[in-house]
């Protein structure tokens, strides 16, 4: 459809592709399916995101309640603790919503937009970790105090982020497979970033290591890795 434009090139392309040509009648298989169809219950705009969040939040909730909190939590400035937690939570909410909730009036979530939002969320969290990390000298732990190398501490936290992300990724990929026929990798990236952000949120309360390098590599790095894993898995499942 040229939407009223009478440009010669567009007209030629419209003619070439047979835009005004009548389509064939529905094939017998399709016609039979239509004749025998029953009413269906259509989905709710927030249905998928609610289901994925419900399934995925069980483990983070258990971890927050049952795992010991970081020992410097009381010694850190309360506004900073709240701001950092809010940032991780916002990164989670924005990325998950972008991956699974269509805009009003659309049927499908916009995969390209979702990946942009997730990347922006990751960059904001990384910038916050780089420039606004706070520790409580004498109270915050260093990996060496536990007999760990900094690398081991980072890998431990990345492992925890993946543990937290697993259910989100599984439930989210199942939902994406049903919902998103194209742009799977981009939507998967947003889903993985959301799952990683939830891991970062939980670590903010339980990880005893407060150094900037640890937060950037172990927590934000974990988020970036789950985003990558989400993109790869979604690409494999949805194929494009």
């Amino acid at each position, binding site marked *: 459809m040229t939407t009223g434009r009478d440009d010669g090139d567009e007209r030629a392309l419209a003619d070439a592709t047979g835009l005004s040509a009548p389509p064939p009648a529905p094939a017998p298989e399709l016609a039979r399916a239509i004749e025998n169809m029953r009413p269906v219950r*259509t989905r709710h705009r927030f249905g998928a995101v609610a289901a994925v969040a419900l399934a995925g939040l069980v483990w983070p909730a258990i971890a927050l309640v049952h795992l010991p909190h970081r020992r410097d939590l009381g010694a850190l400035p309360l506004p900073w603790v709240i701001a950092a937690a809010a940032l991780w939570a916002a990164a989670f909410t924005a990325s998950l919503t972008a991956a699974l909730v269509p805009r009003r009036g659309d049927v499908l979530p916009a995969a390209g937009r979702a*990946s942009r939002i997730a990347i922006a969320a990751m960059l904001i969290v990384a910038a916050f970790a780089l420039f606004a990390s706070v520790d409580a000298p004498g109270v915050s732990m260093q990996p060496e105090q536990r007999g760990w190398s900094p690398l081991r501490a980072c890998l431990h936290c990345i492992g925890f982020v993946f543990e937290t992300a697993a259910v989100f990724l599984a439930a989210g990929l199942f939902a994406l497979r049903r919902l998103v026929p194209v742009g799977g990798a981009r939507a998967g990236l947003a889903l993985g970033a959301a799952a990683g952000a939830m891991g970062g949120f939980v670590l903010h309360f339980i990880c005893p290591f407060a150094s900037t390098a640890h937060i950037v590599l172990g927590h934000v790095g974990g988020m970036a890795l789950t985003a990558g894993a989400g993109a790869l898995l979604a690409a494999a499942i949805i194929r494009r």
Partner: protein
Amino acid sequence: MDSEAQQAAAAMERYCQGDPAAFHQLYALLAPRVLAYLRGLLGDRAAAEDALQLTFLKVHEARATYLRGANPIPWIYTIAHRTSLDEIRKRKRSRVRLSSHGTPGGPDSEPTARITGVAADQHPDPAERHDASNAAAGALAALAELPENQRQALLLTKVHGRSIAEAAMITGSTQGAIKQRAHRAYVTLRRLLGKGDDGVGAGAGTPAGSTEAKPPPRKEMA
């Protein structure tokens, strides 16, 4: 939503409620343009007609994932797009090279035939294209020479009147990528049609930040 989208949404809603007449209304409204889009991507009408049937069968199977009140047109285009990608992949897998004497490419190489599923008359020699009396055939042949993603962007934004945002959603891409691909496709198409790229630069692309597809500069076909 424009009136056409509202009409499609109303038909889709009744279709989900189990009204067969609503399906036929939706089919009559959208099948011509979906068929044209598929033909632009796949090249030949027979394959496009098969893909059209498959698209509407998938729409039927996926109708429970429709959101009431939403515009179903980009969604149906997305399903058609996915169907065409599957078809293109199937063709690539089934491409056959036939040989009769020797190694391909060498002096003794065999004549090689490639079965691509696209009719030969839809791939005229580029040198002969200027002589083609039918501008539509020339345009279709030029279209077939564009890279797949540029072809998609051009068809959606310039021929089918989809907005940049809709085209990005249909192809699972970003708006920036769609703008760039549509612009490049338009420049290449004009070059292939022997019209150069003068005057295309600013007009063919869509200004940054805009979500609406802009028409290309008004120039008549050669």
